[in-house]
């Protein structure tokens, strides 16, 4: 165990090149995320589950309540997502970690190297567990029992999931390549986030009667999900205070850890050499720099998430909302966060290949400026889709919408400028941009978007006779009303044009810093 802690200490130290604040914050981040996800989900789950803690014979097996049935289903689904996301991430972390050959040369057990990789992967893949972290507390409150056995049962259940995922990762590592593992892991991770959004949005408005009606349709599933052979049922029993549930979880976890230890002795850490050998086919590349970026964009699951989230989230959040400008504004604000992320991703692939890009017969600033095309086009298209209702309602809105590409282009340039200003940043981190950089860009986007889309949109709307609360008072002072309605968007657009020119010029001069 001390061996694992030692390796972990130096692995994390090796990676931690961030500033003092990020070093202080990083150990408490998992707790922060657990609270961010766990507390609201817990409050919502309590509201939904506490009224249904009743035995309904026709729906759930004897000894269980409707609450147990619903919880068992949620736990089974999230457990699957947990291990489907976690196992590929373990493999990917093993491959990504360039120190593995060195670690294997040390007089340490293979299981220790595997355990370090396994811990490292838990960060992102552990998301499904955050949602259900409040369940043992909910049980303790609803059943009015001590939280000790429920919490311990939950902890051992998580250990069990980790053990199953580790075993699965060992088996998977014999068949999956590094690229396949990374994609698999990331896709499941994003599906989890989407599921959360999609499941909890309609549930949040649910009432007891609806849940019982809903549960009627799931009675067959409840009988399967509450089978006494399933570890999830042992967890339910444990959360209800049963010592036997806790005992079964403990024994199975220990058995699987021993099995993992035995299997790790013969584990092959070098599966990245397994490359498929097929008949090769060449296809002509037109616009090579852009095409290369496009292939990255298509293949990196994170990008799928960025695009999907920025399009779907505003639509889900504002389903049925009459405030179309708010939808538009939300879309712009989300894209304001994701344009820098996509630009950062595109820049990172170039940096990771350095000094190769500098050998091409191309101006380095030209290579850099290409990185702005995809983020600008993608998010402008999304913004255009989101703005369709606004245009239908207020055709004049088109005057404001045409500035989307400029806003995203300047944001993308700003991201590149930040990178070139501090080229020595750690590219192995999941978040390449610092928190303050993200906040700065988000703040700038929201400020400019407010001036153009909120002020401009409301102004047009008010002109057409649709009263808007914000500008209503000002409309009594015509000078102030027109000055703000026309002045703010005009000022913001002029600022955007100036900033775009400024950043473009700086990037052209700083192009040589592409490789740091």
């Amino acid at each position, binding site marked *: 165990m001390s061996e694992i802690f030692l390796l972990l200490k130096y692995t994390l130290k090796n990676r931690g090149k961030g500033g003092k604040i990020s070093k202080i914050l990083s150990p408490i981040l998992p707790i922060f995320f657990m609270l961010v996800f766990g507390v609201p989900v817990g409050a919502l789950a309590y509201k939904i589950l506490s009224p249904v803690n009743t035995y309904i014979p026709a729906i759930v097996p004897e000894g269980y309540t409707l609450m147990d049935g619903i919880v068992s289903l949620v736990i089974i689904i999230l457990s699957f997502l947990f291990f489907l996301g976690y196992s590929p991430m373990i493999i990917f972390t093993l491959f990504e970690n360039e120190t593995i050959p060195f670690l294997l040369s040390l007089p340490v057990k293979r299981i220790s190297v595997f355990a370090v990789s396994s811990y490292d992967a838990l960060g992102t893949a552990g998301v499904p567990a955050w949602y259900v972290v409040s369940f043992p507390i909910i049980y303790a409150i609803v059943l009015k029992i001590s939280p000790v056995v429920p919490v311990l049962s939950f902890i051992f259940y998580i250990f069990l999931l980790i053990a199953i995922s580790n075993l699965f990762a060992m088996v998977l590592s014999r068949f999956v390549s590094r690229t396949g593992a990374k994609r698999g892991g990331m896709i499941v991770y994003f599906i989890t986030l989407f599921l959360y959004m999609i499941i909890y949005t309609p549930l949040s408005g649910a009432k007891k009667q609806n849940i019982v009606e809903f549960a009627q349709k799931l009675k067959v599933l409840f009988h399967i999900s509450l089978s006494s052979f399933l570890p999830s049922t042992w967890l339910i029993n444990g959360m209800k205070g049963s010592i036997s549930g806790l005992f079964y979880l403990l024994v199975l976890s220990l058995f699987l850890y021993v099995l993992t230890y035995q299997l790790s002795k013969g584990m092959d850490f070098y599966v*990245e050499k397994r490359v498929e050998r097929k008949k090769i086919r060449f296809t002509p590349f037109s616009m090579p720099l852009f095409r290369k970026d496009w292939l990255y964009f298509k293949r990196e699951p994170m990008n799928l998430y960025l695009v999907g989230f920025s399009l779907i989230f505003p639509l889900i959040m504002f389903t049925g909302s009459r405030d179309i400008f708010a939808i538009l504004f939300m879309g712009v604000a989300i894209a304001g966060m994701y344009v820098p992320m996509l630009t950062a991703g595109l820049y990172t692939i170039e940096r990771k290949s350095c000094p190769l890009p500098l050998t091409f017969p191309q101006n380095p600033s030209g290579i850099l400026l290409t990185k702005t095309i995809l983020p600008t086009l993608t998010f402008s298209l999304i913004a255009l889709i989101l703005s369709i209702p606004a245009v239908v309602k207020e055709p004049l809105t088109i005057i404001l919408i045409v500035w989307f590409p400029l806003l995203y282009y300047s944001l993308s340039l700003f991201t590149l400028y930040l990178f070139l200003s501090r080229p020595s940043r750690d590219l192995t981190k999941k978040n390449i941009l610092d928190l303050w950089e993200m906040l700065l860009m988000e703040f700038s986007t929201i400020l400019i978007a407010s001036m153009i889309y909120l002020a401009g949109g409301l102004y047009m709307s008010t002109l057409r006779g649709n009263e808007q609360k914000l500008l209503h008072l000002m409309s009594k002072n015509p000078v102030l009303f027109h000055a703000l309605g026309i002045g703010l968007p005009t000022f913001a657009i002029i600022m955007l044009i100036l900033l775009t020119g400024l950043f473009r010029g700086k990037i052209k001069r700083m192009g040589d810093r592409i490789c740091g």
Partner: protein
Amino acid sequence: MIRARNLKKVFGDIVAVNSINLEIKNGEIYGFLGPNGAGKTTTIRMLTGTLKPTSGEIEILGIPLDKNEIEIKKRIGVVFEEPKLYENLKGTEFIDFIIAIYKLDREKTLAYLSELTEAFNIDYLDGFIGDYSHGMKQKLALVSVLMRKPEVVFLDEPTVGLDARSAKILKMLLEKITSEGRTIFMTTHILEIAEKMCSRIGIINRGELIAEGTLKELRKLSKTGSKSLEDLFLELTGGEEIAEIVEAL
């Protein structure tokens, strides 16, 4: 042809390369030797336009590097010791990318590539580069440069990561390239390769070019009458006390 005058690179307080002068003619294989951290890679990076020198002038193929860098980059090829390529691309896509970015004749290049891939036993181009081993990436980097038939080839430790067969093929190919009048600038730690292949050798130590010439000319610099390049190299770079060090261990 490669020419460098008073080439200097300073990183903060460290002088990585200190006013070195080089003149390499067409058809030469120039071996650039030196201990770790002597300034070999920094020199290659400056000569290939991937690192700006602090001072000095560079001419490649008679063109000043600071005047027409793009034109020079079209006509030279460089393979670095660490083959960092685009990991999200497949090998075939990387080749297509190189063909497009250098605006090469597609058919001719692919025909020559096919010969090269067969020679180097490359049958994995349909896989993602991110899944390749170090040696596989090194071979891809090599063929992606050689298929362009550049007039000057810079190779930084080209045999590192290559299997014996590929290393042998590379050595023979380099001799063929120079017989066509093209120039090769190569760094290597394997002194046997330098001794057998290079028409001239330059030895750099702590950023200074301390010796240069043919093997015969270098032997004349020896105070102890060293015959082999290895002994000569150690004598010139201050490694003659090796026996004493080993004895003390």
